[in-house]
């Protein structure tokens, strides 16, 4: 299946990946090949067959509602590119 540059640009934007024109040109046929590979599944007639929600016959797995200790705040914030000891800090979010 052929993919247009525009379609790949859109997917890159949704994934928040900044691609140069060179990378776009390079990746587009690769992505098209991957999609094409998955499309092989279209050869099967799946009329009337229930979609598989999960590959394992497992269901209804629960944990009991008992609170346990959370991370110390300093640990939670440790890998943040920017934080002020209390909160993560991110560039201002507009239009909230």
């Amino acid at each position, binding site marked *: 299946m052929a993919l247009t540059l525009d379609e790949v640009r859109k997917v890159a934007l*949704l994934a928040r990946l900044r691609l140069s024109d060179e990378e776009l040109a390079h990746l587009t046929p690769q992505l098209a090949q991957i999609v094409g590979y998955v499309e092989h599944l279209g050869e099967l007639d799946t009329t009337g067959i229930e979609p598989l*929600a999960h590959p394992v016959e497992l269901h209804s*797995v*629960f944990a009991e509602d008992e609170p346990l200790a959370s991370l110390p705040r300093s640990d939670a914030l440790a890998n943040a590119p920017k934080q002020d000891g*209390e909160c*993560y*800090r991110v560039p*201002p*979010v507009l239009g909230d």
Partner: protein
Amino acid sequence: MNESPFDLIIGLEVHVQLLTRSKLFCRCDTRFGAPPNTQTCPVCIGLPGSLPVMNREAFRLSLKTAVALNCEIPPLTKWDRKNYYYPDLPKGYQISQYDLPMSREGWLEISDSKGAFAPKRVGIIRAHLEEDAGKSMHDEAAGKGDTRIDLNRAGTPLLEIVSHPDLRSPAEAKAYLTDLKLLLTYLGVSDCNMQEGSLRVDANVNLHVRSGDAMVATPIVEIKNMNSFRAVERALAYEAQRQYEEWQATGRCKGDTPKRTFGWDDQRMLTYPQREKEESADYRYLPDPDLPPVVVTDVELAAVHGSLGELPAALRARLQADFQLSSYDAEVIVNQGRALADYYLAVATGCGDGKLAANWVTQEVLRLVNEQYGEIQQFPVSPDALAELIRAVAAGKIPGPRAKDVFAAMVERKIGADDACQELGIAAVDQGALTELCRELLAANPRVVADVKNGKAQAVASLIGQARKRNPNVNPNDFRNLCLELIQQM
């Protein structure tokens, strides 16, 4: 006859936080008001390799709610990833439910005791279980500085309840929210407290405008940022007018423009368009591979049905049927919550008079609870003690006019009716003592006797004050009637 040039079509989306002790997919505490980022762990902040596991109690509370809302419960339900980027969504996706939600097609009945609208069933499209995002706070102190993110709330279980667009007025919308909150608090599944954020409302609104013989639909607007039921009413009223004026000016119909999002400004009392996103959201829903589906068996469902307890509508009906209350009084009692309703039931059953019990509970008790005690659980007079007081008054053992004094002493001193009467020196005045008192006062006031004999029965009233000075327990009515009787015999 509807004179309005349009019908207002409203659908409400309500998110309620479920009353679990821990989060939906991890065991972080969900207690409100903790310092920022002290209730998080690798799962809810989305660290690589962490895996979610469903909170059993969260699912149970969702099921209870959906059943109480008369929903169909499918035998199999699953969770899906809703993908988008936002700083308060640490995984880059929200775990929600897309095509196999845990419940669908239910209803909630609403009515208005003052008759603002006819009783009706509001359809519910679906109710599903999903996780909450964290909180973004804009640092105004630093001017146009950073946004601060607190992830304590991320992962809290939310039940999203989506109504059909069956609501036709701000009053109906408010009634829906009020009755939904009442139901959910009776079930004990949520606090439904908008101030604390445990209940949030978005509205979808458009108009059906009468244009000649035809009906034209205006484009749908989603309204956000309404922080109270009153704000919802105001926003809907404003938006109805705004859409009508916009339609008159532009003639734009549903389908001409995509759905827009507006915010409600409670200060300026208007809806304003929110910034449109650069590209339309494509959530790329996919089944979450980390969460197995949940199967609900018929046995489990039957157990849930049995566990609901008496719901507000049924309780209102029972108070009217079994305790002879008016629909208004029944509503007042039920609206105060299950704890107060239970208190009332104990008093009414204990004293045997539903109406008397209602008067005492809705006036004396409620007043004190609201002024001083906060909630009925803190009120110092037990329902049994109050029932005893009411019985004693009805039996004439405590003079009617002194009942409130006795009650006040019971509240203040935390004692029973008998002890309160003893302390206050209140006792029913026996017939002999009353007769003596009447004869004494009549003998000392011949003018009064003469006036009464001349047809002015009300002259006796002037003696009541003196009688009560001699014995504060005298019942004015008993005194007056006895005096009149005695004068007749003179």
